[in-house]
């Protein structure tokens, strides 16, 4: 059974359409990233699945529950890492984990969690003394304290510096090895690529592309781009392949088959004893695909 099955999800605020017919299926044990720019409908979608908001339309099944009516039994099986959640600032990390853990039938040992998110030295410190990054790690520990089957991560590393992000990714990778189903939202492409088994790109409330990090947006069967400096005394029309002049003396060749185009080009160049300076072959990056998918029309 899929962990999450959503069809035709719709939600509007007054006359602003936030989510406009979203379909998502997430298998048990899968790490699924919902990727999109700010305001695309990511948080609304996730908050509906968490049971924080009600949907205007669509069919939703999460772990076999309707989140809006699942109540206690549903919430015992999920963990939520809020974008900006807070805990009572006067409590210590250990106290907070034991209080929140006490709400669940299965609870993970606070010390184990503290160790896992690397807060050992702060275990008995008041939460108000933690840095922003430490609070986010506590947040992650609180999301896990009930040993959930499904974890929601809403923009887990927004506002982190690059080294803190790497560290957080390390923690999250450990989670994926525990076999938990994870739905994460992010507007960082590299985060989705790094952590997720599957990615859906959401924009203006609609899923505009879905796939693995390798195949998203037709990346696997997209054209390769060959670039090189045009040798002196040669015009672009003289080349054995269709080429476009770029800035300076650079030419760009867009090829269905990079192997064949390169063969034609290099045979031609060697025959004339020419050097193809700065020769480079690239495939569209996930970033290129993402920017194209979410470009303003």
């Amino acid at each position, binding site marked *: 059974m899929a962990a999450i099955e959503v069809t035709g999800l719709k939600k509007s605020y007054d006359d*602003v359409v936030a989510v406009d017919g979203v379909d998502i299926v997430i298998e048990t044990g899968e790490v699924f990233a919902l990727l999109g720019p*700010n305001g695309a409908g990511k948080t609304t979608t996730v908050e509906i699945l968490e*049971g*924080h908001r009600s949907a205007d339309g669509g069919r939703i099944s999460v772990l076999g529950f309707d989140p809006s009516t699942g109540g*206690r039994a549903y919430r015992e099986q999920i963990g939520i890492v809020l974008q900006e959640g*807070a805990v*009572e600032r006067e409590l210590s990390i250990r*106290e907070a984990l034991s209080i929140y853990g006490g709400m669940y039938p299965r609870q993970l040992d606070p010390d184990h969690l503290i160790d896992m998110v690397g807060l050992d030295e702060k275990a008995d410190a008041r939460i108000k003394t933690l840095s922003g990054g430490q609070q986010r790690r506590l947040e992650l520990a609180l999301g896990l304290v009930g040993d959930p089957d499904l974890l929601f991560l809403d923009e887990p590393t927004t506002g982190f510096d690059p080294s803190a992000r790497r560290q957080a990714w390390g923690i999250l990778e450990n989670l994926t090895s525990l076999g938990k189903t994870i739905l994460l939202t992010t507007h960082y492409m590299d985060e989705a690529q790094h952590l997720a088994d599957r990615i859906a790109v959401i924009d203006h409330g609609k899923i505009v592309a879905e796939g693995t990090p390798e195949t998203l947006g037709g990346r696997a069967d997209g054209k390769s781009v060959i670039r090189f400096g045009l040798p002196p005394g040669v015009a672009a029309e003289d080349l054995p392949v269709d080429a476009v002049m770029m800035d300076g003396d650079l030419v760009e060749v867009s090829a269905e088959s990079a192997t064949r185009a390169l063969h034609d080009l290099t045979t031609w160049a060697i025959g004339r004893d020419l050097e193809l300076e700065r020769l480079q072959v690239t495939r569209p990056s996930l970033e290129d695909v993402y920017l194209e998918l979410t470009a303003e029309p």
Partner: protein
Amino acid sequence: MRRPSVASLVWQQFRYQNKVFWRTPIAAFFTIVFPLMLLVLFTAIFGNDEIEGLGITTAQYFTPGLAVFAAVSATYTNLAIGTAIARDNGILKRIRGTPIPPWAYIAGRVASSVYLAFLAMALMMTAGVVFYGVQIIARTLPAALLTFVVGVSCFAALGMLVAAISPNGDAAPAITNATLLPVAFISNIFFPIEDPPRWMEIAGNFFPLKAFAEAFRDAFDPTLTGPQFHWPQIGYLALWGVVASLLAIRFFRWEPSSGSMSRGRRRRAEEVSELV
């Protein structure tokens, strides 16, 4: 794999709300210490002789009134501010994402404030008895207790109502201070106003604090006879409590309103959630 009982969840919330209270010095000061300071101050200013026309000492008059004031501060003020700030910080939203039934969380908060109200009242009465010769009358203790229970319940409900309607955590202290202090003056908490203007008397009689203070104070008045159950006042407090509870449930929100989130998150909608 046993699901914790609801009673244990309420108990756990109760305990840690108390913990948070004692670790917030400003709340502990205004609830516990400040009313005691007023008692010391009033008896120093007015002396502890018999008040003319009342036939009881200054302390005998003020101590029950200030006990009520401390109890109202523990329930009304602290619940309103604490709950509104918890909502601003996203704590209430977090709670909604956990298995604890929402009403069990609220019950823990309210129970903690009621417990602290009892503590503040007991401290005040003890200080009155020990230092200022205040008399406790066994015959009227049942009336005092009943009045107190109904009174603090009423003000706890009002505190939750203020939390419900406060747009953010900054508004809650403004609302509680702007309401409690003037009403305390016209309810004869600080000193009895002789021949108040008609409007002041009407206003004083309208708000529930005067009913609470009078009914509680009369249970400590040695010149009176009988069990001192002030049923009209107790009924009036209950009415205020019920209306405030219904309105609080109707307007309670678990999510911070747009703009009151730190770092200004985009929030198009404030969803009105049900309390239960």
